[in-house]
């Protein structure tokens, strides 16, 4: 029998994978994609809870967060592009003019 916890664990693992990606990647785009995976994981959790509680509010929430993800993607990619046009790289480790 598949319970909510199964879905939740899937979402938690997915979240952790996202975190892992954000940690080990150095490519800004991939870091960002990993973050998107984290958001996805959260959405999955919300959907699971919605189903669990029989509350459709969760679906609306996911609807809204998808918008947020899209908005973030637009701005984020804009930033990445600007940076790339200036520095010619998307290597996160290279951007350390400012430190300490």
């Amino acid at each position, binding site marked *: 029998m598949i319970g909510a916890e199964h879905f939740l664990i899937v979402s938690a693992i997915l979240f952790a994978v996202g*975190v892992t990606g*954000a*940690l080990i990647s*150095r490519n800004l785009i991939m870091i960002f994609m990993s973050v998107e995976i984290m958001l996805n994981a959260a959405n999955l959790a919300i959907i699971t809870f919605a189903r669990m509680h029989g509350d459709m509010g969760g679906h609306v929430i996911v609807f809204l967060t998808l918008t947020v993800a899209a908005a973030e993607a637009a701005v984020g990619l804009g930033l990445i592009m600007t940076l790339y046009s200036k520095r010619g790289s998307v290597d*996160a*480790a290279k*951007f*350390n003019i400012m430190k*300490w």
Partner: protein
Amino acid sequence: MQTVLPLIALLPLAGFIINILLVGKLSKKVAAIIGCGTVFVAFLLAIKVFFDLSALPADSRVISDTLYNWMTVGGFSVDFTFLLDPLSAIMILVVTGVGFLIHIYSIGYMAYDEGFGRFFAYLNLFMFSMLVLVLGSNFLMMFVGWEGVGLCSYLLIGFWFDRDSATEAGKKAFVVNRIGDFGFLLGMFIIYWNIGSLDFQTISALAPTTFVIGGTVITTATLLLFLGATGKSAQIPLFVWLPDAMEGPTPVSALIHAATMVTAGVYMLARTSTLFVMAPTTLMIVAIIGAATALMAATIGLFQNDIKRVLAYSTVSQLGYMFMACGVAAFGAGIFHLMTHAFFKALLFMGAGSVIHGMSDEQDMRKMGGLKKYMPITFMTMLIATLAISGLPGISGFFSKDEILWQTFSSDYGHPALWFVGMLTALLTTFYMFRLIFLTFFGKERMDEKTKAHLHESPKSMTTPLIVLAILSVIGGWIGIPKLFFGATNYFEHWLEPVFASSHRVMQTVAQQAEVPHDTSIEWGLMAITTILSLGAFGLAVRFYLKKPESVARPRESFSGVHRLIYNKYFVDEIYHKLVIRPLHLFSIFLWKIVDVLIIDGLINGGAFLVGGISRVVRLAQSGRLTSYVTVFTVGVALVAGTMVLLSYGFDYPLFGANN
């Protein structure tokens, strides 16, 4: 102020204020008139109050006069009160009298000094302080004078402030005196907290009932007071400043370091005799210290070549005599000697000053000789003084010294050993004093030609005081002629009786047996022994320094070790330097460089450095690299979530918690 008593002290103060404020603006003449005039008026007033006092019945001879309440704190209250009793009456006469003479003398002596006005200002300030010291009715006022004279001594020793040796000597005098004052202060505290008053009369009245005779408290208190006295009166172990003090102008040596200030210790002991007689141990120590000082200083005096230094050690020695007297509870005898000593020692110093004046500031006796024909008055007066100090029968010194020697032998607190030391000192005194006379006034003229050409008798302003003092040195002792002679009353002792009444009562309670009748034969015998032996010492001096000056070398060589020891003043200064001053200096540097800078500041700066170091290390995490930022963030997440996991188990969070 109901009487003129305070004026005696305040007049010189007024003189000081005028002279110091207008220093450099007044002509020397005016400055001298102000300086001497105020003291002279004070002297006249002193005579007046003396007669006022003597007009009173013997057992109520006390005049006191309160200026105002100085300070009141809680139960502690001290007035500026002047107290005239037979003891202070004698003292003010001596102080103002001798002081006035020295003021006059200074006019001549300092005539060409550019600090003339300043000199008289200081002298007047000294007179004021000394008079406050002797007239003060309580410990605190005495202390005011006590420190005041110390200050004046400091200023006057260092009067020629461009001489390093002079300023050094002044500072030394002050500091050494301060050590004594430390004792004085503590003694005062003990007495105050036990009796509840610092007033001499109250103390005398209450002490016998407050303290246990021979008890620790009173012994400590009197020992501390005596420490004060050793400082001021240059006794072992604090005598070292006095010889150096000779760097000051000679009138200063005469006034402060011979006649008046240095005797303050003796005066204090006499003033507080009631306390001292209650502490037999202290008395014994006083006597021993006095005797030891007398002997030691006399031996040093034997080989000094500086004319003033000889006199300085002589002063130390004579002061030792006075303490010896006090130590055997013969306070009257001590005061008597104080008075006669004031006359002849002042005279000796002024004579020496006159010699130095004539010798163009030369003080080394080895470069003098044959002066008697150039300065006859100086010679005559100094000879009289020398005879007085040597105890030529019939002259003042004889009576006072004999009185002391007799008391050391016969008093309840006395001991033949003390007498013996006293006698030995007397012989040495005779020897070195005549050595001084012979070296200075007789024999070959050893000075250089230039000096010789300038040799002259001092001006009248200097010789007149010499003559007056010479007369006093002769007759000054007659008021205290012992009963032995002519069966007359000892006026001096009689006069002082009311002052020592309280201490006598205490002594009577202590005395085991009834008073032994005066054994005149022993007294005669001792007197004879001293006189004869003194004559022998005189003879020796004649042989070594008049007849065969070259023969001195032989005994000097045979006792070369001893001679070196004595010649170098027993190396006391060096020992103090090595054992006290140097270690203290090093200790100070240790405290500053090691404790202060290295340890305390080091700890503080180290703390700051540590914080800074942590800061520098932590900063490295802020590498500017996004990846590591994300990692740190995630570590934080792991920790927070981990804490949550732990907390969900009811884990007790270690650091967290309220204090109450």
